[in-house]
Structures are given as C-alpha cells and as structure tokens.
C-alpha cells in the first residue's frame, strides 16, 4: 500500500501547547511505522499563511490535511480550497466556521471556561471581586472561554468583575497587567480568571512581587502546561488540562480513516477516553474531555511529559 502524505498546519508553533500537540502527532503509531508521511507547517500566527500552506499541500497532492486554524472565519476559505481539490480536512484544537470539515477533534472551550471560572468562584465562595485575563480578542479560544467564564459567573451574581483585558496569552503581559491592577484596586481583587495558564502564572508572579499571599487569591487557568501543573501542586492555582496529544492523535486517526475506509484507529486515545466514541470515524465532532488538574494527578501528568 502506498504511503499516505498527510499535512498539518497549525496557527503557530512557538508556544508550548502547539509544540506538545505537534510532538504528539509525530508520536502517532501510524507515523512511527512509516505508513504516514507527516509534514507539520507553522502558520506563523497568520491566517493567510495557513491558506498558502493549504495551497502548497494541494500542489503537492497531499492525501489529507489536519487544520488548527488561526481564525474561526478565515479558515473557511482554505477548507473550501482543499475540499475543491478533493482533500479531506480534519479540524483540531480550534474551531473553523465551515461545514466542509470532515471532522473536528478538539475540546469544548466553553466548557473549559466554565470549569476554570467555577474553580475560581468556588474558592471565592461566590462573592468578592475578580479580574479576567483574556486571550487575543477574536480568537476562538478567547471567544469561547469567555462565554464559559460568563456562564459560570451568572451563578454568582454578587461577584463583580473589576477588569477584563487581553494579555494575548502572554505571561509577561499578564504580569504587567496584574501589577497595575493590584495598584488600581488595592486589596479588592479576590480572584483571577486567566483564559490560559501562562496568563494565570503571570498574575501569580505579580502577586508575589507585590508581597501578597498567593493563596489569598483564587486563580485558575486552562491548558495544563508544565509550570501550571507545578503551581497546582503547590496549591497556587487551578487548571484544567487540555489534552493536546489526544486531540492531535485523534485527528490523525480520523484523517487516515477519511482516506482509507477500512482503517481502524491505532492510537491509544480511544481507549484512554472511553467517553469519546470512535463511531467508525464518522462523527462530525470528537470532543476530548478536559481533566481537572489536581494535586493527585499532577505528578502523573508531569511524568507523562518526559
């Protein structure tokens, strides 16, 4: 049987999460065995660059494409182009607004937003003031996690949101922002919702620098990056793990299936998450469950990173 040529384009590879995602893709058994020849493209945080990479893959007659779009809307044109060329496209990790996707393998960001906000609100006892550190405005992660944040906040009408501002997923930016907020609202901030771990970690550093006690704050993030797991272990924050490896490997399984009708999945994802059913690779949406990071599973999670 001929080797499959499968390409993946990600919105960008410079941050840890996508790095883990793409590393997992390369660890997929079908890639290791040589059945699949995999190329991972770096979208360089530009929707147009991703579209151009689609064109490159179409030119080179790739068999299937895995797509982590930079933007919800702008990815649609790229998917259309691949569809026109008869190449199946499997979405992963981030949503794209197109019904031409073969499937989507990712996690529900609304849910994550809700989970992290809940963790913060629970610790605050459903009262007090909090601040929200957002991702870059307009990205699907930011939009959906904010939706989830607000859903959880509805349950606690007494909680006041003092500030909502973007720190662009960046720890350094969040740290600066938090330093300034601590000055502008002295003694008033009880909780911090970071839409990702990096920003939550930045807030923690700001709190430390202001000689405040981090455990007096309710802080949460999303993703489960290594630093965050360590922080959870130290009781500094809460985090929910987004299983990028499962998203990546699951997506590849679905992509292979789209080309080879007789394929059965070879990654461990499907056994690891029984809630996520393979359903013969025909589902439109595969949602990898979130895992709350706790002091109990932290070490195990860290172990799996090595």
């Amino acid at each position, binding site marked *: 049987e001929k080797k499959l040529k499968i390409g993946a384009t990600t919105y960008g*590879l410079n941050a840890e999460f996508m790095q883990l995602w793409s590393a997992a893709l390369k660890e997929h058994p079908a890639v290791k065995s040589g059945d699949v020849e995999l*190329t*991972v*493209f*770096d979208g360089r*945080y*530009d*929707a*147009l*660059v991703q*579209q*151009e*990479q689609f*064109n*490159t893959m*179409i*030119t*080179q007659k790739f068999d299937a494409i895995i797509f982590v779009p*930079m*933007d*919800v*809307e*702008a990815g*649609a*044109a*790229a998917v*259309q182009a691949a569809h026109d060329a008869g190449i199946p496209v499997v979405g992963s990790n981030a949503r794209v*607004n197109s019904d031409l996707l073969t499937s989507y393998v990712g996690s529900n960001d609304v849910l994550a937003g809700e989970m992290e906000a809940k963790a913060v609100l629970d610790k605050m006892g459903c009262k007090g003031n909090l601040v929200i550190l957002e991702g*870059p*405005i*307009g*990205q699907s992660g930011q*939009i959906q996690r904010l939706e989830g944040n607000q859903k959880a906040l509805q349950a606690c009408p007494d909680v006041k949101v003092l500030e909502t501002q973007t720190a662009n997923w960046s720890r350094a930016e969040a740290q600066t922002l938090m330093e300034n907020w601590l000055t502008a609202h002295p003694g008033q901030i009880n909780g911090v919702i970071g839409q990702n771990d990096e920003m939550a970690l930045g807030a923690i550093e700001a709190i430390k620098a202001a000689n405040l006690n981090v455990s007096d704050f309710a802080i949460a993030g999303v993703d489960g990056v290594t630093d965050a797991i360590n922080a959870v272990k130290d009781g500094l924050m809460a985090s929910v793990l987004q299983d990028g490896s499962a998203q990546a490997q699951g997506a590849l399984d679905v992509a292979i299936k789209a080309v080879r009708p007789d394929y059965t999945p070879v990654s461990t994802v499907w056994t690891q998450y029984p809630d996520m059913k393979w359903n013969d690779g025909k589902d439109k949406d595969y949602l990898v469950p979130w895992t709350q990071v706790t002091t109990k599973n932290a070490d195990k999670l860290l172990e799996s990173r090595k």
Partner: protein
Amino acid sequence: MSLSDNKTTNGWFTSDSRRVIIQEYGIFFAFLLLSLILSVSNEYFLTSGNISNILLQTSINGVLAIGMTFVILTRGIDLSVGSVVALAGIVSGSLATTSATAGVFGAPYPAYLALVVGVLVGFACGTIVGIIVSRFAVPAFVATLGMLSAARGMTLIYGGGKPVPGLTPDFRWIGTGNILGVPMPVVILAVVFIVSWWVLNRTRFGRYIYAVGGNPHAAKTSGINVTRIRFIVYTISGSLSGLAGMMLSARTGSALPQAGVAYELDAIAAVVIGGTSLSGGVGRVTGTLIGALIIGVMNNGLDLLGIQSYYQQVLKGALIVGAVMLDQKRNHGQ
C-alpha cells in the same frame, strides 16, 4: 546633515550609481540562485501551480513593499502598513458582507463601493501620518508607530474585535478571481508595479521623490515643495495598504482584526533587500519587487521542502543575509 551623508560604508560615495545598478542585478542573481537551488531540491517547485502559489503569496507583500518604496525613497518609513491592512479590510468587509451581524446597515453594498471605501480608509490613515510627518516634523518612525497602534485599535473598536465573515463573491473576486488565468492579486501587483515604475522613473513626481530623498535642501532650493512630496508618499503607502488589506480579506474570505500583524517588517525587508537605501534617494522599485519575490520564494520553498519550522526560522535569517551579502560581495569584487 547631508554635508557628509555619504551612504556607503567604505570611503566616500564610491561609485554609487554603479552600485545601484549592480545591486539590482546582483539581487536578481541571488534570486535566481535561490530559485535554482529550490527547483533542484523539489520537484514541485517549478510546476505552474506552485509558481502561481508563489506569485499569490508575494502579491500582498509586494503591494505593501512598493508603497513602502515611495516612503523610504524620501528618507521616511511606514510602520503602520500592517495595521492599515487590517483596518481597511474590516471597514470594507463590513460593507461587503452578507452576514447580518457583522455588516453595516444595508450591507452588502456593491463590491466597487466597498473597494473604494477600503482604499479611502488607507488614504485617510496615510493623510494623517503624512500631515504629522511633513508639517509637524515628527520623525516618520514615531508618527507611523503611532498609527500602527492607533489603526489596530480602531480596527478592533470598529469590528468589536470580531472578524467579518461572509464577504460577497463580487468582493472576493479581487482575491480569488483571475484574468486570462492570471490570479487577480497577481494582476493587481503587476498593475501597481508598472504604474509605480512609471511614476518613479518617468514622471516629474518621481523625480521629486528621488530629489527630496537625495538632498532635501537642494530640492527645496530648486523650488520643489518638499513638504508636499513628503506628504504624498504617505498617502500612497496608505492607499496601497488599504488595497492590500482588501486583497487579504478577499483571499481569506473574511476580514480579520488581527490581519497584517508585523507585515511592515516584511515590506521593509523587501525594499531593503531590493537595494533601496534606508537613508533615501537611492533605490529602484524593480529591486523591491525582486526583494518581495525572494521572501516569497523562500517561504514557499522551505515549506515545500518540509523543513521543520524552527529550522526554517534559522534558515530564513541566514538566507536573507546571504542574499544581500552575495550582492554586496559582487559589488566589492568589481
């Protein structure tokens, strides 16, 4: 001051025009070499489909870089192009969308109207920058850095931070259509290039630009309205950025508020690689086009070869420097 403003590194202005000429060919030579290497390394590189890809990928940066050439020739710089791309894209997109939520009242309007408005948005940004630079003598770097920030902010405010999806097919034609098989963005780039070449090389205004960049004192003493020329180049760059913004949104199918981030670097790089001096007065728009093509070919080629992203970044850095070094070397050699 220009008393001593010799732009070469070694010794006086040793044979500048020769340098310019060789530079142009020199960089063309670097471009050919790069293309040659890539076509040997990858079977797809020279396919018509891929060449069309490269040209498409070059078109937006090419248009921006040509506008930038005008500005840099007068000793200026325009850092705002990327943000203006986004602003013009969003504003014109909101007129040309079928989406009920993202469009302005009455949208979709005819594509030509959206296009005119998009160019006007760019023109307006250029006008503001131009006034600040030419009348208030604010350094171009500061004025356009301000616009970089402000135009991005306005983009986000205008669209509420959300993209504008569902652009009409008419509007998208400038990104996806073609004329006699040539993709529209490439046609636009070609037209912009030819007109610019003609303006810079054949018209009075073009002469003024070189004169102002070469020696503003002498230009002024020769009766040239230096302030006006300085002003106009920013409106050109702004308008072309507006055009590029619409090419971008027409290609991607929706207008994005985060479009065009850091595009100014690529545009300036194309200009400088093409042999135009950042100190003004010297350069050719042909060089700029080749510079943009080098960047396009490099990005395309490294992706084609499937080189790992991290290594790509290192290679790109080395290749850019290498291309220019080759060029300089040839000059020195002679």
